């Protein structure tokens, strides 16, 4: 771990530990968000962590970004962390100006948004994360001659509030001839795919953090809860749940680390889909096992387990998930001249 990364991670954990209580996490279900935590992160420069110094950021890299997202996932703070950091990251990547206003994104390989000759976008997006809070949206728009990455102001957009299974804002946004703030050069299919790969990878980091939290708090629960006069971790059947939770958490952690390394070395074309596909099994196993171990309390608002499991059930269907990635990967496998073993051992 680089020294910068270590420092970023430590600072963020410290802030979260100090300021996040059960009440903070509960805000999401009251239709509120943790704006105070957001301000603290901003003051500490953590929101600009992956923006280059040239563009006014702190100059981190993708590994830093993912490490922060993982912690974000772990604490389930009701703030648009991934949306903000990732939007700015891709803006800069495509030579558009990052912003410190609230921003979110919507990416699709089949853009449902058009850009007119005079620089106005029109289109509709069904589930924009934190849309109602955002001043800007980054998206891909189809214009003359090709696709563009565009930054669009949202003040004149039509916003219909909605939520995912975890209660996080996922809003319908309709843009009708909204003048854009900025656009990139024409971007090709490969560049869009690369963006979606990165988005998938970032989401994997968030999910890994969420899984880790569920694992840790379930272990804690088995050490506090007594039944039949014993702590429940003493029961073999509970131990099997614990072992499976540990296994899934470790395997996802290792997958995400390997994925990050592949990203740094630019050999991530298959590593990201593989991680994303594997993560779904972890989501199934961990959420089922954790709830089973918690018993009735886990399915109530008395306990905060549900914030994490509901997030997992939401995140797996946001962006490009298992189904689409399997189809993509299988297309590559069908066309490959390599054996399966060569596929697995060629870097």
């Amino acid at each position, binding site marked *: 771990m680089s020294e910068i990364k270590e420092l970023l991670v430590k600072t963020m954990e410290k802030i979260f530990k100090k300021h996040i209580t059960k009440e903070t996490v509960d805000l999401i279900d009251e239709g509120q968000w943790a704006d105070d935590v957001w301000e603290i992160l901003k003051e500490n420069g953590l929101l600009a962590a992956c923006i280059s110094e040239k563009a006014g950021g702190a100059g981190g890299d993708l590994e830093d970004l993912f490490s922060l997202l993982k912690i974000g996932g772990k604490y389930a703070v009701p703030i648009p962390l991934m949306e903000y950091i990732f939007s700015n990251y891709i803006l800069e990547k495509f030579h558009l100006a990052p912003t410190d206003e609230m921003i979110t994104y919507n990416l699709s390989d089949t853009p449902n948004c058009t850009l007119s000759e005079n620089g106005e976008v029109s289109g509709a997006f069904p589930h924009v994360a934190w849309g109602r809070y955002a001043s800007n949206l980054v998206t891909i728009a189809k214009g003359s001659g090709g696709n563009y990455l565009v930054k669009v102001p949202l003040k004149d957009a039509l916003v219909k509030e909605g939520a995912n299974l975890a209660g996080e804002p996922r809003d319908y946004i309709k843009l009708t001839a909204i003048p854009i703030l900025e656009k990139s050069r024409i971007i090709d299919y490969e560049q869009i795919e690369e963006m979606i790969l990165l988005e998938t990878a970032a989401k994997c980091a968030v999910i890994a953090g969420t899984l880790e939290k569920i694992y840790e708090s379930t272990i804690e629960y088995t050490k506090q809860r007594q039944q039949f006069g014993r702590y429940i971790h003493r029961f073999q059947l509970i*131990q099997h749940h614990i072992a499976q939770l540990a296994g899934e958490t470790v395997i996802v952690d290792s997958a995400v680390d390997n994925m990050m390394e592949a990203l740094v070395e630019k050999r991530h074309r298959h590593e990201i889909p593989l991680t994303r596909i594997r993560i779904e099994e972890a989501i199934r196993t961990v959420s089922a096992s954790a709830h089973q171990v918690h018993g009735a309390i886990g399915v109530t608002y008395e306990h905060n387990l549900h914030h994490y499991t509901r997030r997992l059930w939401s995140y797996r269907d946001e962006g490009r998930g298992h189904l689409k990635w399997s189809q993509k990967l299988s297309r590559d496998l069908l066309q490959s001249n390599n054996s399966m073993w060569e596929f*697995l051992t060629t870097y």
Partner: protein
Amino acid sequence: MKLPSSQFTKDQEKFRLEVRSFLQKELANRTFETACDSWLSGCNPQFSKKIAEQGWIGLTWPQKYGGQERSAIDRYILTEEFLAIGAPVAAHWIADRQTGPLLLRYGTEEQRSYFLPRITNAECFFAIGLSEPNSGSDLASVSTNAKKVEGGWLVNGAKTWTSNAHDAHFMITLVRTAPYSKESKHSGLSQMIIDLHDKGVSVKPIKYLTGEHHFNEVFFEDVFVPDNRIVGTIGEGWKQGLAELAYERSGPERILSTFPLLEEIYSILKQQQNKEAMNRLTELVAKLWSLRNLSLGVAKMLEQGGEVAVPAALVKAMGTQFEQSIPEMVRLLTETYPTMDAQKMLDRYMAQSILHSPGFTIRGGTTEILYGIIAKDVING
């Protein structure tokens, strides 16, 4: 539990290709036939001899004992290439994986210089004697005992489920050298090298459910074991044995026993250009990819001298369930009629996988025992 991520150096990649092309040539020459679970059931001393000629047994050991002083990652690469192609490496597997490292750690100079060069030359194969008719998962309850006599020990008792004891020359045997007590059941156990051709040793086959012979029961009747065949310290056998478990449990053989079947179904689905089935296969590929990362992470940590007992147990628990799941998935992807003597490779690999797979989650520590180890560590850690 933080494990290092896996990458290989250029030299390691080169070595992989060297091993692969050797094995592909041998396969083309019909020196061996690809089979699932060949690392434990494919005993072929002539083939082991060829591997020895390449310098590939005891790859990591000191040169003075016939080794090559290569890294643990090189050995990892070597073994996974054996597994991927389903090569019959069972004859030397145990000696290479366990006996060598055990003697290098606890053996005497005399034991090392006698056994290790013979192992690297594929002249000397080992078996491991742990389980007994009344001691399975509860290994500490073993009752094969050794009584001190002039110049050595007299061993009486029996071991069971001993893989390849009929082809092996020696067995590292866990015996009780002090009486069993409930309070300290792990003490009083010792490891001895027993010559399987000695007077008083008898090896009886136990037919495996495929009808094949690789399990045995081994009986000892007043077998004399000289003092110089004691490994390490008397009474420390449990601790010494535990140290080897991380190697035994975290290796690629806990993931790849049925890999030839996965390779074959991949090739068939490609021929069929079967999109739907290939979509489903990606799930297995993702599982394998992630398990391999985990196993490699443990290998790296072992090389760095880290504590890996628990991640190793995780690799074994999850990896063997994966190996087991492959035939179950494959039969839903294409039609198959598994028989052991099928002409079609898919059917043959299916038969081998189905019939061998119940053992995967039992041998080397049952999943249940491993789950217990993992959970206890997690709770106490």
